[in-house]
């Protein structure tokens, strides 16, 4: 038994030292920000890039003299693609490392898991990934696309310029695709698309055998009407999906596939020659032609020391979020959460596609929607660009959320104000 007593002591010490340890890092004259991206586990494939991007942005900012005359120090932790661990790490960053703001998360699950922590400890999270919407927290800024900034414009493009009449909504079986497809279905039917001209198909995470589904798509598309696929397939499963598309000879001219989660990163794992013409809808493409972008790509290649590393949309979202935060902090003259929350609304910073992004009162931002066609070199070529669209947190196409709006400015300060009942707090009963 003596053993376990001793060990018990050791453990307590060890665990406590985790806290002590971080204390040790802190030099007093820096402003700390947290970087909360998985560096191991299933999500590392996507999130590690964002971690690097954040480190680069911090480095660049520090070259410009940091913020409030202090250097910025990034505290990087690894939540290891484990959602409860996200919450634990967020708590640690905020209450142990005393970071001024946190940049992180990729999956909605991880965001949902940290949301209560940020609200409880009143800190700020910048979330850089496109997501299903239906959320607006006082302490979170959603710098990625809401469905109306990605899905709906893409569908419009296909309808108008490609005259698509028949739709396959294929997605991984989780919340983002399910919600997006619900919205799309409602939208399509509002545009007079018949129910049986819509085929919805879900696959498990990391699905790698696409033979049947691609065949189904071909068959569905051979009914004489122009058909397109709207893909909300999640990262890992995309490569085998596109490989199967290519091999079964599904040509973009016949059945174009438009994807919402396939960017330069995903294409990097593919030979895109057979995929030319398939589409993606984002708010940024590496191929966008603007000084800001050219400079950003240059910095990125220099920072990673690898000029093959691609940039992608979430990186731009991180870029916008970070700059917006810096600007807000400068304006507020402090990193105090409440002050920053006040000043950041309305802050406008340049985005990478040559325009500007404004932080809206609903904590989403304005973004242009870019439709791009895959090119043989693994890049996208923009075939349509809309003017900046305001992120719509509560979709107008879901019965229960069409009456809701979010406005975090005083006096309303509400994330789910119901315009029908004029009350804060959802449907209100």
């Amino acid at each position: 038994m003596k053993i376990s007593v001793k060990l018990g002591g050791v453990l307590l010490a060890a665990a406590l030292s985790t806290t002590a340890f971080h204390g040790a890092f802190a030099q007093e004259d820096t402003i700390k920000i947290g970087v909360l991206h998985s560096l191991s586990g299933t999500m590392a494939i996507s999130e590690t890039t964002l971690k690097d991007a954040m480190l680069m942005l911090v480095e660049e900012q520090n070259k410009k003299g940091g913020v409030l005359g202090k250097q910025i120090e990034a505290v990087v932790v690894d939540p290891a693609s484990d959602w409860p661990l996200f919450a634990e790490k967020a708590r640690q960053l905020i209450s142990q490392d005393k970071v001024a703001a946190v940049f992180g998360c990729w999956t909605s699950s991880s965001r949902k898991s940290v949301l209560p922590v940020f609200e409880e400890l009143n800190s700020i999270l910048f979330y850089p990934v496109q997501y299903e919407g239906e959320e607006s927290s006082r302490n979170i800024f959603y710098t990625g696309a809401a469905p109306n900034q990605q899905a709906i414009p893409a569908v419009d493009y296909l309808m108008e310029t490609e005259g698509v009449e028949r739709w396959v909504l294929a997605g991984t079986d989780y919340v983002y695709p399910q919600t997006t497809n619900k919205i799309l279905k409602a939208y399509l039917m509002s545009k007079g698309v018949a129910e049986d001209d819509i085929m919805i198909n879900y696959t498990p995470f990391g699905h790698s055998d696409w033979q049947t589904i691609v065949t189904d798509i071909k068959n569905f598309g051979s009914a004489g009407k122009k058909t397109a696929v709207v893909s909300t397939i999640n990262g890992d499963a995309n490569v085998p999906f596109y490989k199967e598309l290519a091999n079964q000879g599904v040509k973009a001219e016949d059945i174009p596939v438009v994807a919402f989660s396939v960017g330069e990163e995903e294409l990097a794992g593919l030979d895109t020659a057979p995929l030319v013409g398939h589409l993606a809808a984002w708010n940024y493409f590496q191929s966008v032609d603007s000084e800001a972008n050219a400079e950003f790509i240059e910095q990125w290649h220099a920072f990673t020391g690898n000029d093959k590393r691609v940039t992608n949309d979430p990186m731009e979202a991180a870029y916008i979020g970070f700059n917006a935060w810096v600007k807000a902090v400068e304006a507020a003259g402090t990193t105090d959460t409440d002050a920053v929350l006040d000043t950041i609304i309305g802050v406008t910073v340049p985005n990478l596609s040559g325009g500007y992004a404004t932080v809206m009162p609903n904590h989403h931002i304005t973004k242009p929607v870019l439709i791009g066609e895959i090119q043989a070199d693994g890049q996208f070529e923009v075939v349509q660009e809309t003017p900046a669209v305001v992120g719509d947190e509560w979709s107008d196409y879901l019965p229960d959320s069409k009456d809701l709006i979010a406005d975090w400015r005083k006096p309303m300060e509400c994330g789910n104000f119901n315009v029908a009942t004029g009350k804060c707090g959802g449907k209100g009963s």
Partner: protein
Amino acid sequence: MITGFVLRALDGKIVVAIGILLAIAVLVPALNLLVPAGSAFHIPTYAVSLFGKYLCYALLALALDLVWGYCGILSLGHGAFFALGGYAMGMYLMRQIGSRGVYGDPVLPDFMVFLNWKELPWFWYGFDMFPFAMLMVLVVPGLLAFLFGWFAFRSRVNGVYLSIITQAMTYALMLAFFRNDMGFGGNNGLTDYKDILGFSVQAPGTRNVLFAMSAIMLALCLLIASAIVRSKFGKVLVGVRDAESRVRFLGFRVENIKLFTFVVSAMMAGIAGALFVPQVGIINPGEFAPANSIEVVVWTAVGGRGTLIGPIIGAVLVNAGKSFFTGAFPEFWLYALGGLFIAVTLFLPKGIVGTIQHGWHARTERKAAAEREKGEDADMMPQAAE
């Protein structure tokens, strides 16, 4: 005879262990609430819920040890029971949110609203009542374990075959719970809880109570486990592990013995899950991932299977290490963790506690061995039941 059953449990080690746990249950909250934040002895709330989490893992490991360490059933699916317990608690907490959800629906949790479900699925009924939810925490994992074990043990599935189908079980459950149509919030799971029994889950007070509860529950389960393994039943259990057919030919119904242990263990895992959820604030299908269940096996092995204290130590040690390294060396912690597992299996095959005990035994043995003719060679020693 019940008293005898319990008294038997209280041998030295266990008494001390339980003592320590109860002490922690009082001490940590005290140091968190009473000691001013400035003081060196203050334990931050962050650390409290962290330790609370470790204790839940410890309980899970203890549960696994009961079936693996003592009965030789290597379950690679214990995470499933843990997660089910967690979901039962999560469902209660979701119902407690009531109309404070973003859509302000009095009954439906948010994720049902935006998938515009019209009314609550039947299996969500009753979870607004705490006692019912707590009952489910025990019943659901218990029932699954019973059904699974009933078939598996009756048809004498054992060894690695059993391990693999337990893995298949948790894997299938993971896929199922990922589906939105299941009505458990899909991959986002259940989160954003407001309060439990009327107390805010965020409030430091609640956190400390939850921590204390975890410690007490662990102590209680430790007591039960100890009572079981020290009873004649426990001896039969070890018999099953070492020489199953002999136990059969002695007239014992091995399948019932295994079944009972499996169910008890599953219930303990369920309790662990139920305590885990309010402290970390989320339950989602990730908890069903086969990798999680394997990790539990690793904790148990590190601490020392076939001992009751071992798994507790292992769980806390490994997880404390994880918390530390993921923060300190985010890029390299996996090397450390992987290295630890290899090192333990190579140099401490019996786990930390096991090795120490063994060493202690060995000394007394050597004395005895002196005046006795040589014992059997190494391969006669009980081997890990596969």
